[in-house]
């Protein structure tokens, strides 16, 4: 690729059959108590 550089190694749609354990942190328990930010949480199931 000359014109495009992809920043991720994985897609949200990869390995969907083994995802969805629900063990990751609840977003409001981190630093935000007034806004919902889920995309910066970490997966606990890797």
């Amino acid at each position, binding site marked *: *690729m*000359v*014109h*495009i*550089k*992809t*920043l*991720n*190694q*994985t*897609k*949200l*749609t990869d390995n*969907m059959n083994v*995802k*969805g*354990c*629900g*063990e*990751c*942190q*609840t*977003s*409001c*328990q*981190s*630093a*935000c*108590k*007034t*806004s*919902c*930010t*889920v*995309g*910066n*949480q*970490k*997966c*606990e*199931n*890797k």
Partner: protein
Amino acid sequence: MIHLFKMNDMYFAVDTNSGLVHVVDEIIYDLLNDDSFKCDHKVKELENKHGRDIVSEAISEINYLIVNNMLYTEETNAVNKIKPAIKAMCLNMTHDCNLRCEYCFASQGSYKGEREILSYETGKKAFDFLVNNSGLRRNLEVDFFGGEPLMNFETIKKLVDYGRSLEEKHNKHFRFTITTNGVLLDDEKIDYINENMDNVVLSIDGRKSTNDRMRKTINEKGSYETIVKNFQNFVSKRMDKDYFARGTFTAYNLDFSEDVKHIRDLGFDKISVEPVVASPEEKYALKEEHLEILKEEYEKLTELYLESNKEENKKFNFFHFNIELDGGPCIYKRSIGCGAGTEYVAITPNGDIYPCHQFVGQDEFVIGNVDEGICNEEITDKFKNVSVNEKPVCKDCWAKYYCSGGCHANAYNFNKDFNIPYSVGCELEKKRIECSIYIKGKLS
């Protein structure tokens, strides 16, 4: 669905459904803009601008991404795989506070009710409720909240011991956090917190003038001098454990990047400064008319972040610029959002259970109590049925898998409908995501 944006000298294409983020050049940006690559006369125009061979090469790269499900990816309906189980609890240790912050959503700690303290017995029942409703989830989170939780410090210590005593028997692991205004933070409490709390949120708004305008003592004096000293003492002993110096910005400090900078200069390297949530009639409320200024401010903050990160002693982490492009939550989690009322609850000193801390004090949102458990499933069902792919505004939004539909309480408070998100919050969230992606691109 894709989202194209340009920030400073960089161009990006975000593929919503795969979550892939592509740094592209101007030619790709032009070709993707309005789907120009599909339209012969637009391609011709771009060939005249960039050259025929280069445009042809760029179109090949676009087609490669499409064929490999990396661009214009189809929607995946990923709702409802996560089985509902309550695994996070905001435990209101007091409905009382030793500050009188003007913007406090908890009505200066009382949540519009009596000033109360959580007893050890009620706290134990809250822990039992959490364990008994957590199903197979192992990681359980308890945030000691308030009011000001350090006003009930001895009970916190007893409840942490109680929580630990439940772990082995029930195969659970507790993660404790605390949110404090810092007024009562002395050496004894600091040592205890550093030993027992996985994360700590330290409330400070930034510059003295910003902080003291909103965060006042009971005698209406500023809290800045007291809390800065205490927080600096705290952080000097925190070592590498997590914490956030967390502030709120309002219409009074639209230049909030200066407050972030100030917090950094005080020696705090993990910072979160968030927009206030307030009714539009409040003088300090953020409104549509502030959006352009605030977006520019996030860009200033982005530059500050990148500049600061070049120097070891100025480096800082800004909560809303953290973004997990790999290793973040799965698409199931991203579809259901914050989990209020389904995996997250708030429990008050009298034992009432609410879907989250933002609903505390609104009687119609009591979903149960620690003696009887969840009693009002009419309310919890409403939360179970909220997902980004069902909210009309969210389902066609490029940012839906980053914010996961936003804060339900904000949606309800502004629109009286969980399905209509708070629009000012959406715009700011989208800007923050763009800034976060730009930072990733710059540092890649």
